[in-house]
């Protein structure tokens, strides 16, 4: 009898544990880029969301291969991701291929804190069916002050001028942005870059310009590399994501300067995979994370511009260092004088061919 009661109490305990876990919501898997960026999302979106709803957030740093992973998961019929942080171009592809959840923006998102309707609040034309942008970031050039004791480079053309500004360059190992810059340095007006790049002669011209600095280039393929290469003195100028340079400048006190000229800016944000395991909670997270306050909060941790107009007035200072964030934003008017907007459609259309050409050019 005693044995029996012991057994039953164990069973009861077991049942209670099972029920407990059934009641507490399962954690959400959010896929992003890792490093300082995921940290900023955790501080601004995920921790407050957990505090409010009790739903834990699990971070996965897989966005580097986000579209590939998503496609593989959907194709295998085993989706484990709830939310994926992704670039605008990839988001359009994911939506076209039916592997991202379609959204009803007016219903699924909160209007701006100042009452601006959803469709008017986000960056124009960015709400393309499945996608909610959260930040505007820029790929730009930055140099190590120690590399240029005298005159400093200040334009894209200077970056390609290795006579006037000697030293190695670090570029991202893909044609995106590099071809645009090559043309810009070759004298093409910034707003005509894609027009020229759309012609065979334009492509030739871009590669010919890249040829002039080819033996001076070190290629990088992870966002953390360029600040490292600059800090090591391995290169004099590097292309990089602006938030990484900000982090090196402000948090790590590196002597880096950003060249605010011809920076190629694009959007980054969220999609929900079709067949996400916790769709309801994912939708709640999406609504919470992309509201006016949360997007503004993120700028306390990293210098990426919020993708909502209503968030801009709420941008304040960096939480750790107290630095005023406004001047570091890629969307700040002072920095936004001569940007190049990345043409996602152009790259979706011509990317396959240009990447093949680029790879062939690298091999030569």
């Amino acid at each position, binding site marked *: 009898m005693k044995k029996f009661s012991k057994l039953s109490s164990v069973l009861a305990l077991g049942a209670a544990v099972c029920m407990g876990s059934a009641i507490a919501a399962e954690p959400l898997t959010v896929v992003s880029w890792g490093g300082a960026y995921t940290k900023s999302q955790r501080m601004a979106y995920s921790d407050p969301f957990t505090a409010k709803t009790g739903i834990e957030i699990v971070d996965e740093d897989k966005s*580097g*291969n986000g*579209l*590939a992973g998503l*496609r593989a998961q959907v194709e295998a019929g085993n989706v484990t991701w709830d939310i994926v942080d992704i670039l605008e171009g990839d988001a359009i*592809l994911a*939506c*076209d*291929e*039916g*592997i991202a959840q*379609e959204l009803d923006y007016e219903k699924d998102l909160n209007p701006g804190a100042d009452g601006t309707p959803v469709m008017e609040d986000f960056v124009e034309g960015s709400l393309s069916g499945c996608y909610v942008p959260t930040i505007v970031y820029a790929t730009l050039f930055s140099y190590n002050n120690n590399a240029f004791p005298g005159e400093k480079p200040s334009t894209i053309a200077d970056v390609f001028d290795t006579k006037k500004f000697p030293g*190695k360059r670090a570029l991202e*190992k*893909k044609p995106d942005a590099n071809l645009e810059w090559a043309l810009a340095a070759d004298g093409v007006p910034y707003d005509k870059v894609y027009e020229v790049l759309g012609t065979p002669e334009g492509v030739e011209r871009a590669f010919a310009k890249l040829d002039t600095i080819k033996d001076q*280039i*070190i*290629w990088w*393929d992870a966002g953390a590399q360029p600040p490292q290469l600059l800090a*090591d*003195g*391995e290169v004099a100028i590097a292309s990089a994501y602006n938030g990484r340079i900000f982090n090196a400048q402000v948090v790590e006190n590196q002597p880096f300067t950003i060249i605010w000229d011809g920076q190629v800016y694009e959007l980054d944000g969220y999609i929900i995979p079709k067949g996400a395991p916790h769709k309801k909670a994912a939708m709640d997270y999406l609504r919470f994370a992309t509201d006016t306050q949360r997007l503004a909060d993120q700028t306390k941790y990293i210098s990426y511009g919020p993708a909502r107009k209503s968030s801009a007035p709420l941008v304040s200072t960096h939480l750790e260092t107290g630095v005023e964030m406004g001047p570091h934003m890629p969307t700040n008017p002072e920095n936004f004088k001569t940007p190049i907007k990345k043409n996602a*459609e152009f790259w*979706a*259309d*011509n*990317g*396959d*061919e240009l*990447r*093949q*050409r680029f*790879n*062939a*050019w*690298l*091999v*030569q």
Partner: protein
Amino acid sequence: MMANTVEAEGQLTPDEQKRLTADMHRSLRRKKIRAVFLVAPLLIFIMVTFVSPIATMLFRSVDNPQVSEYMPNTTAALAAWDADSNELPDETTYAALVEDLVVGRENHTIGKAATRLNYEKSQMRSLLTGTARKAGRLDPPYKEQLIKINAGWGDIDNWRVIKRESAPYTLSYYIAAFDMETTPSGEIKMLPEQQRVYLKMLWRTVWMSLLITALTLILGYPVSYLLASLPMGIANTLMILVLLPFWTSLLVRTSSWIALLQGQGVINDVLVWFGLVGDDNRLSMIYNATGTVITMTHILLPFMILPLYSVMKTIPPSYMRAARSLGATPFTAFFKVYLPQSVPGISAGAILVFILAIGYYITPALVGGQTGQFIGNMIAYHMQSSLNWGLAAALGVVLLALVLGIYALYSRLFGSNNQMTLR
């Protein structure tokens, strides 16, 4: 055979004989079944983790379902169209296209067909997805309207591409993997010189792997000889020096090489300090082919040393002494007596290092820059970035065929039964 022996002794009746044979067969069968059960876990494991992925890869490299599956009406309509006729398809085909585009947009499947076609011809993606956005509002007849929406629909070449890729199986990934293309008229020809990638990569992968194999042999042979000829205690201690890096993570070793070799790295700093190279003239030993060769030679060295050592350990030192006492110089004794006996170790180590090297991609990706990339990097690139899995599969098959070919050549040269045995 057995039955005959029994009969010859003449001690068993035919009945007994039959029973005995049956018993024997039964016990043999039982043995066989037991053997199958014992190897079953391994067999299943190999099937699941080795054979089926390779089969999938082979299938993927020719599989071409996107267009025929997501544009079924167009595929059917185009079957009747003669691609060589120099005339655009007729109205029925355009109507079928509109139907496919409308359905494809609703189900979000048109993007898949568009992605597939864009591999063959740039701008096909926007042609399809852009038209699909407007197709729902069209009324027949469609032909004129579609050409008005996008002039691409008036281009016969685009239709030729769609017709060609509407076949359920394709060789186009292999064509691309050999740096060739299919012209709109259906001819297969080499790409222009400045667009060729894969053959160059493949060739580079092969010669750099051979170079790395040769370097590991040159570096590993004396070490193994030393290890094999020293007393056990000292040899074991020295062996730790070989094994310790072997057990260290690949990434750790690769990044230590970055710290050593880079422009502002340890080796360059030392050279500058001694005044051997100028400060503004530092050696570039990394982010190029040199970096890949140095790093991979170090990483693969144990795979050469271990087989060499195991073979050398079995060569009796008395043979060399005998040769010397019969008047051979140390050179002759080594080349005539020792080296031939160590050939099994050399060949086993070489094939091991070469096959490992040819498939490497993480190390070349980190230290290879633009001139030290392997074909494996292209495969990884098409798997993860460009998402052209068909092309990745085709490249994988080409690499597999290359390895099998080299292995066949190797086993003909060294034979699988004479010297190759890993003792």
